[in-house]
């Protein structure tokens, strides 16, 4: 009996340890390939060169164009998702009647379950042609359209998490504010939003992390041209799109070109890792605050 219990516990522990193995696996694989990459390429060049042409005769290994592409699409997405998500969160939490919220909230959350390849289709087939009617110089592949669509996709992250944060603010603060003669608007933006700020910041960081790691939308609609620019109307390439692009061809194992996707991958991993940990840290502090 005791032995059986012990064995079961060991098996269950092994299941849990798979997650550690996964992390170790990710870090090891990225590091090993990246290390051999950095034996070929100086880390200075990697971090400072503004050209990324690892596959061509004149090789250049500057991650900056890919970072710029990632930053650009992320910024556009956040510029869309953060204000809209916050407005929706405030509206649903402070203004909307219970019955209205019960309908709208799950409808909005559908936005988050649509597969990203479908969003890529939207960006390429609907949003880019639509934007072209306003911006004639817009390239068929550009950062703007996938950025916007990515923003739409992450709206529910921001709105749901922010709404959770808002609704965990004690009602007594709302009452106090109303009692002073505040309107709902004043109450929402002067009392509730500041009081929920840490939760809202967490939602924003998670949204950024999500946008940084998003792949298919940019792989489909942003073009595949590493370009050190913040111009949203021309083709660019993000870190994620580069990994996909190289994976679509067959770059032989062991070549520097193959290692570039791991060098790019570790860069991506480091950024999202930092973002996730910041949000985890804020979250664990903030949860103590109202409990």
């Amino acid at each position: 009996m005791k032995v059986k219990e012990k064995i079961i516990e060991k098996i269950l522990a092994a299941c849990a340890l798979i997650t550690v193995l996964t992390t170790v696996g990710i870090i090891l694989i990225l590091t090993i390939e990246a290390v051999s990459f950095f034996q070929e390429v100086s880390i200075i060049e990697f971090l400072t060169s503004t050209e990324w042409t690892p596959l061509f005769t004149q090789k250049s290994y500057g991650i900056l164009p890919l970072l710029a592409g990632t930053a650009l699409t992320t910024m556009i997405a956040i510029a869309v998702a953060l204000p809209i998500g916050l407005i929706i969160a405030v509206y649903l939490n402070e203004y909307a009647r219970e019955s209205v919220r019960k309908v709208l909230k799950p409808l909005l959350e559908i936005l988050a379950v649509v597969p990203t390849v479908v969003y890529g289709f939207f960006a390429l087939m609907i949003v880019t042609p639509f934007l072209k009617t306003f911006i004639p110089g817009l390239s068929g592949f550009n950062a703007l359209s996938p950025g916007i669509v990515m923003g739409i996709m992450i709206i529910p992250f921001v709105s749901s998490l922010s709404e959770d944060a808002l609704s965990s603010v004690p009602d007594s603060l709302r009452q106090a504010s109303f009692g002073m003669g505040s309107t709902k608007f004043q109450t929402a933006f002067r009392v509730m939003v500041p009081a929920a700020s840490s939760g809202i910041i967490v939602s924003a960081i998670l949204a950024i992390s999500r946008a940084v790691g998003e792949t298919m939308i940019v792989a489909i609609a942003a073009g595949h041209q590493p370009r050190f620019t913040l111009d949203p109307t021309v083709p660019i390439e993000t870190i994620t799109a580069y990994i996909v692009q190289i994976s679509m061809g067959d770059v032989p194992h062991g070549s520097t070109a193959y290692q570039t996707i791991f060098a790019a991958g570790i860069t991506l991993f480091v950024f999202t890792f930092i973002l996730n940990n910041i949000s985890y840290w804020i979250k664990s502090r903030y949860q103590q605050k109202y409990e």
Partner: protein
Amino acid sequence: MNSTESSRLKDKAFRYIGMGTTIACVLILAIFIGFILYQGINRLGWDFLMALPSRFADQSGIYTAWIGTLWVLGLTTLISFPLGVGAGIYLEEYGKDTWLNSFLEINIANLAGVPSVIYGLLGLEAFVRIMKMGNSILAGSLTLALLILPIIIVSTRESIRAVPSSIRDASNALGATKWQTIWNQILPASFGGILTGVILALSRAVGETAPLIVVGALAYVPFAPQGPLDEFTVLPIQIFNWVTRPQHEFVINAAAAIIVLLVITFAMNGIAVYLRNRWQSKMNW
């Protein structure tokens, strides 16, 4: 007085802005889906579902893709379900409040935030190359299983936590061992919640594209796979393949395939929500 007026005005304006924004988002979703339906619905049909890929758009179908999706889904479930539930049980029931537990917790929170394309790199190196599985269904499924493991673990833990401690006490007081209590009481009582989480996680896996491209699933595979070591394609990859083609007829194919993919995703989510509601109402202790 004046300031009250303007405050009230702002208040009113925001009410409309908020409502407008919310509805606009829902409307955008409606437009997107409407566009897809408009483009693709006429292409849907038995032929489209049963046809192999072809260079002629109008003879091309998604047979290999949805068979591949089924294979991947099945295998991913087989791998991730026991692992995720086991890990969830361990974290919730054993070794609580140890440093290992809090380490695992942070680790899982982190894994949940790792971009899916990174999982692709993991799969490419670990499964495709080191374990020599090639661009097989098995390699793809293992990759996706790792990807959704954190989601399953977190939802398993939440479901277990929702089981009232009185049930645990009652079982313990009768002399049940820890595992007997878990197996006979905790798991049956939390099963609805666990299932919900697993289905939601799988619905995410169904739509994943990038990690599968990275492990090499983007080939022209004109035959339905017959075993876990076969090459494969899945719906999202078939869609990606068609979306990138300039010819309008292929775009229509993509739209039609998207309809199928959306139906699968929404159905899974719908089932999950239904199960959750049923479970929650059954579990009002």
